[in-house]
């Protein structure tokens, strides 16, 4: 039972990071029906910039509390990522807004390769280890432990989601965004500056991505120039799971995907332990007597779950859990 609860806590943490990244995908998709393929790289840049700031502050022995140092890293990462997101929109998407759909997808792939390798030149090919400055504080919850970092990540994500929802439903920009999502040309006729709305969508998504990058980096303690690809793919899966183009869907999808992944990784080893399968027990009994386990798929298959979820959702219910849009797009 405690393992179960522990995996739920881990899954919630991971899931709230996915949710924040997924918001970036879903917002852009909702407005211009386009997958911002390079969004994962924006998240990676966020983690990288924060890494640099945090390491240099720690290295210079600036007498600041750990939280303020991480905050400084985040404050540095957000504008860099926003600038990158804006640049992406201007270079890769805006000139191709009227082109066939294959074109912006390919420029986005090109931009993500460029961003990855520029990051590699700046931060090297190695795994960058975040300095362990946040004191490890743990709390016991019914036999499972939750760390202060996990509580921080979950609550910050919750605040960001609430803030974004309020923004979309209560502000002028939010109205403009929803109008553009509904019908860009009619919105333009109503006096909405469509270009500006699209650009702000990219800016907001990138800012959220930056924060997610810092959270991911400080949770795992590591950043790498290729981390954006898989993280982005998982967040996209989360967005599709919830129903792409739907803000609430991205949040639900993110959290669900985090839970699926962490429970899957926690239990797949036990479930595929051939020594527990009565049907094959006789067949493999020799190996079982030797080491007691014969695990077909271990927790190193963790990354497979997101892709399986993605494929299953697209095959069974392409509109996702909360969405209405159909995946039948060329």
């Amino acid at each position, binding site marked *: 039972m405690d393992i179960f609860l522990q995996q739920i806590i881990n899954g919630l943490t991971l899931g709230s990071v996915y949710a924040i990244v997924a918001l970036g995908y879903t917002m852009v998709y909702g407005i211009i029906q386009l997958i911002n393929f390079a969004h994962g790289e924006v998240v990676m840049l966020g983690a990288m910039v924060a890494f640099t700031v945090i390491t240099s502050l720690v290295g210079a022995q600036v007498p600041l509390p750990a939280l303020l140092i991480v905050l400084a890293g985040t404050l540095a990462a957000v504008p860099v990522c926003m600038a990158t997101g804006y640049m992406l929109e201007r270079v890769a998407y805006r000139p191709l807004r009227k082109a066939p759909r294959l074109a912006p997808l390919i420029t986005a792939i090109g931009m993500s390769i460029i961003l990855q390798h520029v990051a590699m030149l700046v931060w090297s090919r190695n795994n960058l280890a975040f300095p362990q400055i946040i004191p490890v504080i743990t709390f016991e919850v019914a036999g499972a432990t939750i760390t202060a970092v996990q509580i921080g990540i979950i609550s910050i994500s919750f605040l960001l989601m609430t803030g974004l929802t309020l923004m979309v439903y209560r502000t002028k920009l939010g109205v403009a965004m929803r109008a553009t999502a509904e019908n860009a040309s009619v919105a333009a006729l109503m006096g909405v500056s469509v270009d500006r709305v699209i650009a702000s969508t990219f800016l907001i998504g990138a800012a959220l991505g930056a924060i997610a990058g810092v959270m991911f980096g400080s949770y795992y303690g590591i950043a790498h120039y290729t981390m954006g690809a898989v993280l982005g793919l998982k967040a996209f899966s989360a967005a599709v799971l919830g129903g792409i183009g739907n803000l609430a869907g991205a949040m639900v999808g993110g959290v669900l995907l985090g839970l699926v992944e962490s429970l899957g990784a926690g239990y797949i080893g036990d479930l595929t332990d051939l020594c527990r399968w009565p049907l094959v027990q006789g067949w493999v009994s020799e190996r079982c007597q030797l080491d007691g386990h014969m695990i077909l798929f271990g927790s190193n298959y963790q990354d497979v779950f997101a892709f*399986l979820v993605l494929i299953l959702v697209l095959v069974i219910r392409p509109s996702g859990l909360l969405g209405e849009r159909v995946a039948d797009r060329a």
Partner: protein
Amino acid sequence: MKRWFDFLSGSRSSKAGLAFVVVALLILPFALTQAGTAWVRITNLAILFALLSLGLNIVVGFAGLLDLGYIAFYAVGAYTYALLASPHFGLALPFWVVLPIGALIACTFGVLLGAPTLKLRGDYLAIVTLGFGEIVRIFLNNLSQPFNLTNGPRGIARIEPVQIGGVSFRGTDTWFGFSVSGPMKYYYLLLAVLVVVIIINLRLEDSRIGRAWQAIREDELAAKAVGINTTHIKLLAFAMGASFGGIAGGIFAAIQGFISPESFVLVESIMVLAMVVLGGMGNIFGVIAGAVLLSFVPEILRYTVEPLQKSLFGKMIIEPEVIRMLLFGLALVLMMRFRPAGLWPSSTRRRELRGPS
């Protein structure tokens, strides 16, 4: 179709032109050897990439289905070859047996990927195929427990070289007084395979199937309406593209003698896509040109950028590999901006990528 074989009955100048190309291709490895055996190997890799690009061109160029996990089929072909012709299982099946098996298994994987994704197009298909490629790579990396199938990240070594009629393709032989090295023998094998694949592709392009693919690419709904069985035709595109990938993978395993999951990462898929896009989606000779161009550019960079940087700054600042990747990225972006149909666009594709006017 006919125009490509016009040279058989065609004018004297086109016959002479073709004869010139054939002779040039035949003596090319001897000329390259003068510059170093490395260049023959590079040429071989370029032909391998051309094979891969032609396979991907069927899926992306002809049928318009964006596949970002194409390298998975290359991996399946390579691993099939490695498992059936290496000490890993103690098997040493002959080349002519292993290669079709590899193609068949890759084809099965193509159908496995195609069947559940038939409803998807564009972005969604791209993302799902990308995920599929990653799944295959994760399995290759981890299928060493509890049964050692792939030997995990360590990869499979000591793969048998190609052997045809008692002639091993590894090591140097003397033919008609000429010394022929291993890479040179592979060059001729690859060239022969490439010619066969080109002919198949040319025949496909103008066949009922090829036209059906193009119809689906242009407008799936209309294609369906005129009675094309889109399900079968799309699956066929995936299956054929995958088989070509599997064949290329098998030859790759034989040439290298060693394979590991590291050769089959996402970036490789994107590289092949870049070749198809650069050359001109849907245009067979454009795609080959794209593959050759993008295979040789990094090598030329290696021979120019390294010494240049060393003489200018005294050390290497940017590795050629990184420059290559930056160029790939830049090429994808610039091509879509300024020449979306590629350097050598096919006539029909050109029409489509001009977009709504």
